[in-house]
């Protein structure tokens, strides 16, 4: 078996994003210098591109979509199923002739109290919902990071290039996500390394997960549209026009912020307080003082 045969057998793995590290580098080096293998790769890519142009191959009929939505909605309205014995008891109770109970008339004082409670509910319930969503986002970011650390969330694209990540997410997530290239080298050394990205699920829609590595520590960045979750709670610190919220969830430090219609959660296990963990990347930046002490 020639070297070319070995590399040709790797073409599907390359196209399916299943090659990693040295294998990937060896393959790319060989392809660059071998016109015959390069041509075979182009042929395989042509097939792959043709198939991708036909996505989605089928679309579920509207009737089916409506049925499934109904199934999910009915589950939302009754998330807990009463045991059959309890259902039977309730049916027996309802089967008895109903007693005639005069409906008590509400007094003015009671009506005022009801009105006050309603007004307070209108004022505070949206805030409570926002807070609950913010907390859920922090918990999800921590759970996602844990899953990533345990190897359950392999990256779907492996790259150290922010523009490649931005291009990969285009059309995959229901929002415009651009990964910034804001890293400023410290003494000529890169402080952190971009590892790759993948899609994850948050509240029934795709969210963007990007991972980094810094001195052996793994860091993840979860991004969702801010109409799914806003950054709230925790220890709030302003930096320019942004407000960062520092949370500690178990062993993880979670920093959340909202900007330009998106909400971000950066999760790490870096030592020190959640606020101090910002210093690791911002130590060489003009805004480092913002993270070195509480504002």
């Amino acid at each position, binding site marked *: 078996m020639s070297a070319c045969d070995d590399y040709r057998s790797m073409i599907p793995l390359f196209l399916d994003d299943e090659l990693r590290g040295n294998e990937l580098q060896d393959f790319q080096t060989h392809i660059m210098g071998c016109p015959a293998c390069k041509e075979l790769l182009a042929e395989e890519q042509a097939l792959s591109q043709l198939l991708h142009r036909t996505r989605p191959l089928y679309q579920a009929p509207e009737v089916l979509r409506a049925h499934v939505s109904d199934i999910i909605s009915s589950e939302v309205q009754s998330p807990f199923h009463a045991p059959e014995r309890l259902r039977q008891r309730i049916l027996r109770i309802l089967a008895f002739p109903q007693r005639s109970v005069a409906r008590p008339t509400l007094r003015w004082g009671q009506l005022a109290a009801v009105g006050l409670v309603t007004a307070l509910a209108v004022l505070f319930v949206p805030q409570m919902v926002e807070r609950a969503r913010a907390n859920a986002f922090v918990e999800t970011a921590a759970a996602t990071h844990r899953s990533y650390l345990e190897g359950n969330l*392999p990256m779907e694209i492996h790259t150290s290039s922010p523009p490649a990540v931005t291009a990969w997410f285009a059309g995959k997530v229901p929002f415009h996500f651009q990964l910034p290239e804001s890293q400023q080298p410290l003494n000529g050394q890169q402080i952190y390394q971009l590892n790759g990205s993948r899609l994850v*699920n948050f509240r029934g829609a795709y969210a963007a997960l990007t991972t980094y590595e810094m001195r052996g520590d793994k860091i993840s960045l979860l991004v969702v549209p801010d109409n799914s979750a806003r950054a709230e709670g925790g220890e709030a610190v302003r930096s320019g026009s942004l407000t960062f919220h520092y949370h500690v969830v178990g062993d993880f430090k979670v920093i959340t912020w909202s900007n330009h219609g998106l909400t971000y959660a950066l999760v790490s296990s870096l030592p020190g307080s959640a606020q101090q963990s910002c210093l690791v990347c911002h130590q060489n930046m003009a805004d480092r003082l913002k993270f070195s002490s509480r504002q």
Partner: protein
Amino acid sequence: MSLNQHAIQEGSAGIEHIDGLYGYALVLTQNRTDAEDLVQETYVRAIRAMGRLRPDSNVKGWLFTILRNVWLNELRQRRRAPEVLDVEADERTANLADETTTDPHDVYVGKLERRHVRLAIQQLPEEAREVILLREWEELSYQEIATVLDCPVGTVMSRLARARSKLRDLLCSLLPNSYPCPERKVAAE
């Protein structure tokens, strides 16, 4: 509260995968009615079990696994091969995906390509149909496909290679303009 409970309460538990699940159901059943029933049953079972799912679970792979298991159980109950109908027969209910271009020629070419790709997929053996759909259209990793199909990763790779080889032959005869046969190109040279 888990992510999945949140998803259920938001009324969107995995609904974004419905097109992919429907495509997989069509590939397995080759029958629109069976495919719709299969997708519906998949969601019913998934929602019942979602409370037990870990927040960080791969919901997409899990839904595809449920769908396949439901179909295998259905086949066992029927004790006969599925009734094969031409899924391309009724163009009005073909539910072609929204085209991303408004140019009539591009739309026509796009529809033609999709139609021929569907025809080619239908002519593949079942194990080739499902492995290539899960990889090329659903973008599941080899490991995720292995989990759905309940087979080793090596089996996924060999099935995928065979499926691509057969699909290539079918497509270059069905779509010679947009996908010329490699052999033909070599012969012409």
